[in-house]
């Protein structure tokens, strides 16, 4: 059983890693909104209510977060991590949130997820982005 557990863990880790690779490629070649949609997330709208995350869902989130902290590619590891988690939790109808905050003269961007009534990713101090302005000029 111990061996089987180790194999399961290795398979899960490899699966998560492969998801990061796919997401990395996707965000480089596809518009963000389309990439999110392909992975099962929306950029706005209400999240689906009433479905709780399972213990396996939470483990998958922790795996993605652990790998996201070490992900060496791209300028926005939080976006990659968030999209990977959205993909894994797509049956819950996750909503991708994007925000910005001022850090001195710089502006820092961040991504997080609202899913199954939970916020995944620290959104502290970040102000969420709104939809584009409608052209009425």
């Amino acid at each position: 059983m111990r061996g089987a557990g180790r194999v399961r863990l290795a398979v899960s880790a490899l699966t998560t890693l492969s998801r990061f690779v796919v997401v990395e490629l996707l965000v480089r070649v596809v518009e963000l909104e389309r990439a999110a949609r392909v992975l099962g997330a929306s950029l706005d709208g209400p999240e689906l209510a009433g479905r709780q995350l399972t213990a396996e869902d939470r483990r998958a989130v922790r795996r993605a977060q652990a790998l996201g902290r070490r992900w060496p590619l791209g300028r926005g590891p939080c976006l990659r991590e968030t999209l990977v988690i959205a993909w894994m939790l797509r049956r819950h109808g996750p909503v991708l949130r994007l925000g910005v905050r001022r850090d001195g003269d710089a502006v820092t961007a961040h991504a997080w997820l609202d899913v199954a009534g939970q916020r995944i990713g620290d959104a502290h101090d970040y102000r969420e982005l709104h939809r584009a302005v409608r052209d009425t000029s």
Partner: protein
Amino acid sequence: MWEALDDEVVVLDLRNSQYIRINHTGARLWGLLERGASTRVLADSLIEEFGVSREGARADVGSFLTSLRRSGLLEPGG
């Protein structure tokens, strides 16, 4: 997608995931656009607030709107 931060506006161009910072003057125009202002109202606000000529204001508004449309930051009006 966008958000106002103090006296500027930060806009995310969803096509390339690039963030664009719009300065104080642009932020003023952006705020009016958000409320559905016409080109004339935008130009009037520049004249009133910054004392520019009508021709100058029209040109500034025109180039601002063109750059926003080119960047896909204005959704077609309904």
